[in-house]
């Protein structure tokens, strides 16, 4: 079983400068949502940004993690 804390921890480990918010809206530990804000996304395409987050999650998708709705954000001065 995986939970929001574990997912957040993995993303944080892979992207140390990121602000990570992971939610489990249905409380089913299966369908997660994450918003990841990181200055390292700057200048990268959305596909590249998502790949960076997936890389941090390793092979979780082949195992306990079924679904992750992902939003990646490049921080602006206002959100800092």
């Amino acid at each position, binding site marked *: 079983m995986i939970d929001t804390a574990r997912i957040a921890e993995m993303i944080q480990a892979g992207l140390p400068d990121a602000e990570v918010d992971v939610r489990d809206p249905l409380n089913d530990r299966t*369908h997660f949502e994450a918003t990841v804000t990181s200055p390292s996304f700057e200048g990268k395409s*959305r*596909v590249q940004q*998502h*790949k960076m987050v*997936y890389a941090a*999650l390793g*092979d979780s*998708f*082949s195992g306990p993690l079924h*679904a*992750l*709705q*992902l*939003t990646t954000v490049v921080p602006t001065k206002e959100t800092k």
Partner: protein
Amino acid sequence: MNIAPEMQEKLSSQVRDNDVVLYMKGTANFPMCGFSARAARVLQSAGVKFKDVNILEDDDLRVALKVFSDWPTFPQCYIKGEFIGGSDILLEMYESGELEKKLESVPKT
């Protein structure tokens, strides 16, 4: 992991020969997963014809696509041979108007 040459060729020609391809769980009419349903709805709302490929019917294809696209999840969308991403990216692009721009030269339904 490597993809078998025949599979590589099959995928390359599929994304080249179809303007828009959606690799999904189920079909556009009968999606088997909420994310796949959402991606199909986005493309339907954009009013373009697209080829839907049910990855649940072919496990070799499903496994190969993860490597081919370097993407761990489904759905996966290709437009004019370019990998666009999954349902989250499709929806964001639809809302921002980027998708419409990408689909300018694609025949509408």
